[in-house]
């Protein structure tokens, strides 16, 4: 039995556009072990959604997987045939998407869509009382009027409710790996907490793993064991949660943490200079160097390697 549930090695992915082929993911390495929750933080355009979609093989038509491996339970997803991929998505990996509106079919009522999910992803799929199971799931995501939601079309629900329906769908048959891509961005803060705590409980009880992608550092801090910091299509720092927040090393990580406004006051930091890299002609060497306060000549020449700074704490930066 392989130790690692998910092992992404040197992944390179790009997209075809009118200006050429972009190079988004750049020698990306990421691991998820059994029974752990991993956080991915990074701003828009850093490649986090591309990575998640590569795991599930649901990338857009114009995506190009240039090289690398995505090993799930020892098998490379990139080499899987259609049948195995379907099995992967039904039984082993589920995803809470970023945009709930785009993920629910507007022509069918919620109950029909839930029935589909339950039927195909649960072991006992055929024999279930779909309504009962669905109501149970809805209760667990704190949907106030589960019967009404059950019988509604997606357009009749608010954004927050749709998101919770999507979360319920992904929890319908909890799988080995749950990928949550900004699952609570549209939810009110008071509900966010409830929902994330619920997901955490389920993961604990079932010994499942999860990847939580989010920009909300505070949320990620509370709910994950280890964190990967993404920038420019690659990982710049990774460590257990505590170490990332107590001792951030990479200038980008520090910039992110400093930019988060504090409840205790203190004003706003300067932010991080510059903007997201152009993936057609990305910066040479370390992709962060144009924005880095510490940049040096070395930083322009080659991509920094991951170095273990302290136990369970790795940074990719030439200036450490």
């Amino acid at each position: 039995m392989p130790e690692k549930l998910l092992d992404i090695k040197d992944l390179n992915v790009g997209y075809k556009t009118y200006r050429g082929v972009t190079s988004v993911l750049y020698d990306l390495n990421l691991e998820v072990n059994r029974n752990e929750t991993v956080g991915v933080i990074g701003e828009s355009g850093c490649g986090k959604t591309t990575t998640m979609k590569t795991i599930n093989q649901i990338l857009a038509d114009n995506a190009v997987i240039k090289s690398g491996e995505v090993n799930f339970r020892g098998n490379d997803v990139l080499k899987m045939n259609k049948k195995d991929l379907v099995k992967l998505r039904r039984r082993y990996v589920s995803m809470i998407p970023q945009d709930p509106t785009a993920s629910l079919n507007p022509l069918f009522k919620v109950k029909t869509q839930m029935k589909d999910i339950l039927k195909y992803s649960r072991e006992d799929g055929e024999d279930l009382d779909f309504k009962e199971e669905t109501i149970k799931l809805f209760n667990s995501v704190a949907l106030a009027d589960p019967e009404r939601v059950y019988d509604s079309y997606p357009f009749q629900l608010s954004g927050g409710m749709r998101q919770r329906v999507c979360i319920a769908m992904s929890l319908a048959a909890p799988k080995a790996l749950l990928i949550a891509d900004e699952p609570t961005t549209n939810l009110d803060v008071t509900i966010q907490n409830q929902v994330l705590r619920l997901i955490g409980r389920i993961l604990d009880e079932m010994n499942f793993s999860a990847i939580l992608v989010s920009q909300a550092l505070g949320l990620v801090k509370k709910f994950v064991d280890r964190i990967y910091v993404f920038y420019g299509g690659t990982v710049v720092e990774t460590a257990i949660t505590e170490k990332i927040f107590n001792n951030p090393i990479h200038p980008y990580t520090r910039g992110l943490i400093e930019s988060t406004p504090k409840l205790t006051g203190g004003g706003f930091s300067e932010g991080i200079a510059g903007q997201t890299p152009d993936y057609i002609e990305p910066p040479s060497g370390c992709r962060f160097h144009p924005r880095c306060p510490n940049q040096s000549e070395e930083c322009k020449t080659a991509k920094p390697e991951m170095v273990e700074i302290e136990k369970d704490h790795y940074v990719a930066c030439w200036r450490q």
Partner: protein
Amino acid sequence: MAENLIEVKNLKKYFEMEAGTVKAIDDITFTIKENEVFGLVGESGSGKSTTGKVLMGIHPPTEGEISFREHDISTPSAKRSKAIKRDMNMVFQDPGGSLNPTKTVLDIVGLPLRIHDMVDGKKEMAKEVYQLLETVDLDPERFMYRRPNDLGQGEKQAVAIARAIATDPSFVVLDEPTSALDVSIQAKIMNILIDLQDEYNMSYLFITHDLGLMRNIADRVAIMYLGRFFEVADSQVFFETPLHPYTKVLLGSFPTTTEEEEKLKPDLKARGEIPSAMDLPSGCKFHTRCPFKEERCIEKEPKLVEVQDDHFVACHLVHGVDDVEYDVEEVEQEEREFEYDVKGIEMRSG
């Protein structure tokens, strides 16, 4: 003494829909002074966005009065004088939607200048826009002739801000201006907003659901729930010694990243859902989720009352612990100051 720039009295805004009436704003009263940042915080359905839009004249009020420098503006924007429209502006939440995709940055930022005849010809407009782009940290040479599609989210908002201040207004409504932005860009934009407010002597109505943001920009804060104000206070008081249970709940749910913040947070969590605005709870609208709810909370709606110096709260429990001694009618008179038992509330929360 700073003048009152905006005065809002008993404002109500109801929307008639097929399914029923949505009471988006249900009787709020407040003032915004010159040079002040007034923060409006709340979750979805609170009515905070609607408040900004009614102030700007996007929706006319259903009832109540609004005045700007003592001119009545309880009307839709079409009926307001041009001079007033020149003196007020707004920054919207969605950076994409608020910029016309077929126009260049020059045209977008220059539009208010043209509307109010503040420039004579395209060249002069270009000069003004050039300087405005510099104030929002956008390199005019790169951005002046770009179209919104070619801009990043933060850049779009910077353009929206440049446009909002182009006519040198004294009042700007900012409706969740950074919600769609990445955290590092948000910091940059917030800094720009703070500098501008200082330099141009403007007042802001800053609307957001993010308490962390609010802490760092507002002078005074009002928290809104289902169309009503629950608490209004100076920023520091609001965050360090909040009184209303909802305020505490919201603060308690805030995802913090540092130890100090954890210590500041009240340890209170909400239960249940936010009720629909079409089917409002009786009495205090928060009673369905409040950990301290009592009988009187279901029966009677608490009024917003000044319980401390410049600190207003709408909560029965804060108004008076012993309502045996006080007549409930008298409790709701606005001028009185009341003793409140903070310890009593804290004990009940344990």
